[in-house]
């Protein structure tokens, strides 16, 4: 036994007793919202609209079935335009005890919005979540693209407790604000964003160079490799998956393979909602002790 591995095994777990790693499965239910809705080009493009609408209409219910089959809880980041137009599909997210969280109203690009506009979007979303679903979310994932320098503090003051927007770490951390400690960040990575492997569209073209859709078997192996790597090192793994992309009929089998890999580890994986992880992180790191 080398000194190095001895140190490694002695390292305390970041997670509750008996848990080696945390998994925060997360899905962005964008539907038809996004750039084409924001610039108005979607109005004359029903082919692209229906491609996006497939997500809440067909993909989400089957994804919820699959999660429940494996007893997994997840977080759904939902633009509130989608909540307004598919209320019953969204209600089932809560009925199945998953978490629902902020993702803009039209999937706005926050870096292109002023602070006031960002705040207006958050208020509009909160009103819709409260009136339509009777819930006030505590989490936020920035819709496509970046957020601006003020966003983290603005969200914190708005009452959000965590974000899952950044890419630069493999475990939670705190954002800093001018007043001190801010939001918990639960970072993700492009490696587990289904757009990088599976999304494909023409007019508008995605990816820009119209690269090929990856083979499903390869995608499943990569995603499982990502999860296993995080689990081996005892980290926090979240996903950036979109029902309209990853929960098409044949791709649910990719997810099923992933869910099997996660549940095969039993209780040593803390598979839970982002909010539980954020609350745990806050409780474990008292501010004045830092």
């Amino acid at each position, binding site marked *: 036994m080398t000194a190095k591995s001895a140190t490694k095994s002695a390292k305390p777990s970041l997670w509750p007793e008996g848990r080696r790693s945390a998994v925060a499965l997360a899905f962005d239910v964008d539907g*038809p919202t996004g750039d084409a809705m924001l610039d108005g080009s979607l109005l004359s493009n029903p082919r692209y*609209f*229906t491609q996006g609408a497939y997500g809440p*209409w*067909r993909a989400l219910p089957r994804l919820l079935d699959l999660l429940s089959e494996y007893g997994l809880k997840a977080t759904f980041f939902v633009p509130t335009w989608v909540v307004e137009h598919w209320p019953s599909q969204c209600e089932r997210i809560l009925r199945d005890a998953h978490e629902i969280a902020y993702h803009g109203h039209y999937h706005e690009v926050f870096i292109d919005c002023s602070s006031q506009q960002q705040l207006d979007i958050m208020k509009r979303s909160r009103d819709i979540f409260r009136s339509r679903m009777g819930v006030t979310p505590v989490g936020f994932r920035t819709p496509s693209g970046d957020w601006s320098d003020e966003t983290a503090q603005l969200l914190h003051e708005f009452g959000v407790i965590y974000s899952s927007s950044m890419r630069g770490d493999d475990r939670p951390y705190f954002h800093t604000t001018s007043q001190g400690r801010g939001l918990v960040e639960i970072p993700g990575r492009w490696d587990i964003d289904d757009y990088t492997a599976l999304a494909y569209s023409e007019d508008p073209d995605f990816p820009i*160079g119209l690269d090929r859709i990856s*083979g499903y*078997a390869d995608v499943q192996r990569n995603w499982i490799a990502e999860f296993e790597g995080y689990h081996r090192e005892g980290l926090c793994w979240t996903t950036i998956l979109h029902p309209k992309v990853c929960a098409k009929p044949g791709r649910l089998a990719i997810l099923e393979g992933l869910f099997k890999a996660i549940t095969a580890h039993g209780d040593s994986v803390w598979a839970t909602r982002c909010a539980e992880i954020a609350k745990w992180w806050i409780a474990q790191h008292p501010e004045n002790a830092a």
Partner: protein
Amino acid sequence: MTSTASECSWPQGKTCAAIVSVIFDDGLDAVVQAPDLKGRSKSFSVWQYGATRGVERLCHAFADAGISTSWFVPGIVAESHEELLRDVVSPRHEIESHGWNFECYDAMPATEAVDLLKRSRERLNVIASNEVSGFRLPAGNWPRRFDRLLVEAGYGWSASLNGDDVPYSHASSLVEIPVHYELEDRPYFQFNFTPAFPKGQSRIPSYEAVLGSWIAEFDAYRKYGLCYVIQLRPEWTGTPGRIALVEALLAHITSFDDVWLTTAGDVARWHAGNGTTAPGDHPINVYEAYVDEERAGER
């Protein structure tokens, strides 16, 4: 509430429907993207290969599998390849409309659109053994309420939009058989050096991987009781190296006796006969509501 039970029930107690469709554009789809292709004989011959060899090879594979398929053909291609279509395709396959000459219906007045749609249908009817009643949007966007124009021009169904994995009805009662990019061959196999197709000159993927994904989709469509539509093009899968993918996929599909493997026209007529209307939160109706909301200046 569980949706694993089928969303749709199929005739004769079948579990799911499967349609093999062929899009035969003879290069018109590429010329729309790169108009100078017609003056580049080497590059254009990449697409001409479809008529030269691909059509016959696909038809042999279909004959070996004992199936009838649905072909979408622009009216002008029916003129340039009348003999091939009449002798090789129409005896056992359905021929349907892919417009006239890759026109954009969102860039012309409704009367002109209806005239072209009729012209295409009438021209194709000359060589088809079926009554032409189906349409696939060639280029441009689907104009709002285009379903009404198609009905006016004598069509009963379309396979142009997305939004579902079982047939649905437009407000006019035109049937839509939704199609998905991952079940087309072109996104995987189209390649030309200059002009570049695809734009990023992406690598050609592993054939085995593509077949694996197409079969994974089929297995899931069967599991969920849906309507599987594979879309092939003679220039991309009617080749000596890739016809084996078509053969393997068809062998897989025909190995099940609970699959309604039929033409798009049959599926559309069956759906129309069942008289179901799409619910308010169906993508096609949410699209209509979205346009109305935006026009009303709700934002």
